[in-house]
């Protein structure tokens, strides 16, 4: 629906501004997998406090926005699938050193070869996975 695209564009601009604030303000690249990964590893060093603040606001703002308006979070998934997908995403983003925000938004916007190639590959892998799901399970 066209209205979804407009929300997408507005939300996308906000995500872009989030990256701009972190880059021009703190000199950091906004990558969700890197930020949470380094917090778990405790490899953030001096940046630990600002990363905790980033994650705190990232949870808090959507929590406030959804008050009074129930959100669609998608259909239920099996636990097994969630666990398997979580492992794939965890290992994959660690190996590739980035996810949708790092390689996709921050990488492509600076015309990084690694960012563009990573994004093309994970979208292609995602498309094939969804196609396989459709063929095996029928619908999503």
């Amino acid at each position, binding site marked *: 629906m066209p209205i979804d695209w407009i929300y997408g564009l507005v939300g996308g601009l906000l995500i872009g501004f989030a990256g701009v604030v972190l*880059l021009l303000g703190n000199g950091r690249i906004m990558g969700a997998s890197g930020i949470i990964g380094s917090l778990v590893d405790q490899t953030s060093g001096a940046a630990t406090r600002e990363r905790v603040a*980033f994650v705190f606001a*990232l949870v808090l703002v959507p929590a406030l926005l959804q008050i009074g308006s129930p959100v669609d979070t998608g259909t239920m998934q099996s636990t097994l699938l969630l666990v398997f997908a979580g492992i794939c995403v965890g290992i994959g983003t660690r190996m590739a050193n980035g996810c*949708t925000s790092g390689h996709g938004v921050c990488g492509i916007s600076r015309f990084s070869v690694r960012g563009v190639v990573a994004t093309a590959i994970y979208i292609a892998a995602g498309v094939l996975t969804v*196609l396989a799901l459709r063929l095996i399970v029928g619908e999503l």
Partner: protein
Amino acid sequence: MRILLALLSGGLFGAGLHISGMTDTGKVQGFLDLFGAWDPTLAFVMGGAIVPMAIAWRMVPGRSPLAGGTFASPQEHGLDNKLILGSVLFGVGWGLIGLCPGPAIASLSYGGWRAQSFLLRCLSVC
């Protein structure tokens, strides 16, 4: 200052993911469903996010970050097997349930056990 800027950035990121509908796994899987009921929303989100970032990158050379320090320099050691294999694995997991790290964190408050168990599993290996 650095903490405030990080809060502002995380808040904008969360608001953007929420408003764009990217915390809805159905919309993400819909984008990947190229051969089914394709939902192009994610392309608009990506496009909208890339434009301000592209302008910001052009402002980086010759400047220092507002809060002091230096700009983090992204890795640019070319393509390697780790990048390729890692991206394939990430794409498979992303397609299977429609969650990636950013939206998984953003939807923690309302995603229920799905977002939590996904994130826990993801964190245990990443």
